[in-house]
């Protein structure tokens, strides 16, 4: 779970996150204050209407013949008429005594100043109402007359709600537009990088290594430093690539010469030391060590060559796997015989066509046979087998085998099975086999033969297209014949 959290997010996601989160907060704040403002404006407007109708009533207050009279013009309350059918209530009191109107409108203990309209929230039978109150001095009366007009708040609440909803909707719309712009904008902005990626991918697939710097012209300014850095890295890779190539050929050259000297002179010493058994064993030790050293270095060079990236387009040719395998097997048959083992070659075919390099294939088979002989023991059998035309070559032995758990690791350089430490070997053979195979797109697989002991190495070479197609073609031809008559 944590890994998911720290996974490098996509640029789009990051930009959206950094942009939309604060933007959302701002929108929320704007929305809240907007909603508050809407409520206030609606309140103000509605209150003005309410106070208008209040004053229309209070204007008509007068004393006529000792009575407080009031004319309730229809227009006064008509102002308050609306679609939501708010109920309108009023009351007129003098010295706390209800003159006319609804008794439920209780006079608040507000400090009313004369001719000043006060607003307050109250409720009427449980329904919220807005009350406007005015204290009006009427001639001939000592105390002010309190006039109240109230309306239920349905209309103003629904008006405010509608405006707030519209505000929220427009904010959400804005947010969506920004998100969309970021999404497409980033995609558009990154388009040059896609071109760049395709360029790099094309090089990756190419047969030949191309170290030419990537063109800076096609990338946006922001990515230019990245591309420059990549180009300089490319330059360094090229240098080390050439160094490696030079090393493999130089090392090959430089190490061979002194080895040849040592080998020749050790041989001479051996011939001269024939009479002295002590000297003979010493010289034999030297000779064995030189042989081991030579083998190790030949294998290292071979591995370096096999693993180095393709530079020149390598020649992939059609070659005869039977012939290539038989030639190597003949060489190793004599070695197997010297080790008192038997090597045989089984195939029903005179030739089996595969794609790759016969030289690499030969080296692969040689390394596999060398392993089989090296780790086998007297009386052992080694079989090289090509049993179909599908490019599969098997090399099977009845030696110690490789435990299931080690089958991945044996392909690692210098990895040797613990119980093999008594045998001379470098632990490079299978690494070379795999690296050579990879160069030809051939795969190498290990399994235990049916008899339950030993090792079977299965190499799958690439087969020219026609080979697989052939059986299909004959099948079609056969069915054609059936239809023909």
């Amino acid at each position, binding site marked *: 779970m944590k890994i998911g959290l720290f996974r490098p997010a996509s640029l789009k996601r990051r930009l959206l996150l950094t942009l939309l989160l604060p933007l959302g907060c701002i929108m929320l704040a704007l929305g809240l204050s907007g909603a508050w403002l809407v409520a206030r404006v609606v309140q103000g407007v509605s209150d003005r209407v309410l106070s208008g109708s209040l004053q229309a009533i209070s204007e008509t207050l007068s004393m006529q013949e000792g009575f407080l009279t009031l004319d309730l013009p229809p227009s006064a309350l008509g102002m308050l008429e609306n679609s939501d059918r708010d109920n309108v209530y009023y009351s007129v009191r003098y010295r706390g005594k209800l003159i006319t109107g609804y008794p439920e409108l209780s006079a608040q203990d507000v400090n009313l100043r004369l001719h000043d309209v006060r607003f307050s929230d109250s409720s009427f039978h449980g329904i919220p109402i807005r009350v406007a109150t005015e204290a009006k001095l009427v001639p001939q009366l000592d105390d002010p007359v309190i006039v109240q007009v109230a309306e239920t708040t349905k209309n103003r609440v629904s008006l405010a709600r509608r405006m707030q909803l519209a505000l929220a909707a427009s904010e959400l719309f804005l947010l969506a537009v920004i998100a969309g712009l970021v999404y497409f904008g980033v995609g558009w902005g990154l388009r040059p990088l896609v071109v760049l990626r395709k360029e790099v991918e094309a090089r990756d697939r190419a047969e030949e290594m191309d170290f030419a710097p990537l063109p800076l012209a096609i990338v946006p300014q922001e990515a230019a430093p990245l591309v420059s850095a990549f180009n300089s890295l490319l330059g360094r890779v090229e240098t080390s690539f050439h160094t490696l190539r030079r090393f493999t050929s130089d090392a090959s*050259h430089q190490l061979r010469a002194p080895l*040849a000297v040592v080998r*020749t002179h050790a*041989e001479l010493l051996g*011939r001269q030391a024939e009479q002295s058994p002590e000297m003979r064993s010493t010289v034999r030790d030297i000779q064995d060590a*030189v042989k081991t050293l030579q083998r190790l270095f030949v294998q290292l060079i071979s591995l370096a060559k096999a693993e180095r990236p393709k530079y020149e387009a390598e020649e992939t040719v059609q070659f005869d796997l039977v012939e290539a395998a038989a030639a190597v097997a003949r060489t190793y048959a*004599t070695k197997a015989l010297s080790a008192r083992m038997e090597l*045989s*070659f089984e195939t029903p075919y005179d030739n089996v066509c595969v794609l790759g390099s016969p030289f690499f294939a030969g080296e692969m088979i040689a390394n596999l046979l060398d392993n089989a002989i090296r780790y086998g023991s007297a009386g052992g059998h080694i079989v090289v087998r090509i049993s179909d035309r599908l490019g599969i070559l098997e090399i099977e032995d009845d030696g110690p085998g490789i435990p299931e758990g080690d089958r991945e690791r044996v392909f690692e350089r210098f990895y040797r099975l613990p119980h093999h430490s008594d045998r001379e070997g470098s632990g490079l053979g299978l690494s070379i086999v795999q690296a050579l195979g990879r160069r030809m797109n051939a795969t190498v697989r290990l399994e235990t033969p049916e008899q339950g002991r030993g090792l079977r190495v299965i190499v799958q070479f690439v087969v020219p297209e026609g080979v697989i197609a052939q059986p299909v073609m004959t099948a079609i031809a056969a069915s054609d014949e059936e239809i023909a008559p």
Partner: protein
Amino acid sequence: MIKGRCLMRVLIVEDDAALARGVLKVFRTDGLAVDHVSRGQDALDIIEMEPYSAVILDLGLPDMDGMNVLRQIRKARITVPILILTARDATVDRVNGLDNGADDYLAKPFAIEELEARVRALIRRGQGSPEPTLALGQISLDRASGAVYVAGNLLDLTRRERAVLETLLVRVGTVVPKSRLTADVFDYDDSVAPNALEVYIGRLRRKLENSGVEIITVRGLGYLLRQVV
């Protein structure tokens, strides 16, 4: 043919003095006369004057490329057998060398026996005659007369049995493919039964019992002649 062994002169063109010393000693103990030069120009000068039986030419020389030396020798129409010695192992070099007129090729480091064997073969080839007698253990085959002896006693072999034995003897110690044996033993127009070769091998085996050599069948690959171990 019997010119005396002292006339076999071999030239070693090699700039690695230590290696040259070793090779010189080995060939001298073999009874060959050996000269050594370390520069390509010296080699060209001396080859024109001295009739060598074989030349061992290292490709990495200080003054010029060995391949160039090779080309110039052949340009001067000197036909001495040349064995190329190189620290490079690329197949391209090998093919190049043979294309430019080399007779054989050996990569460093080599087993000294192999160098000896190849130089011996080159000298023989230069004299235009294959080895007159082939021998292994107690058996010997006189190529001129076709007689086969086991410990000095003439062995009675048919023509085809002899052909099988000769082919195996020439390639002693290596696995000889069936196809190669069949080609050497039967003519094109012979109608050969599929197991004909096995029949001859079987007969030959019986006749070679107790001769100290044996024919080993390498299943799927061919036959190999070797001394009984």
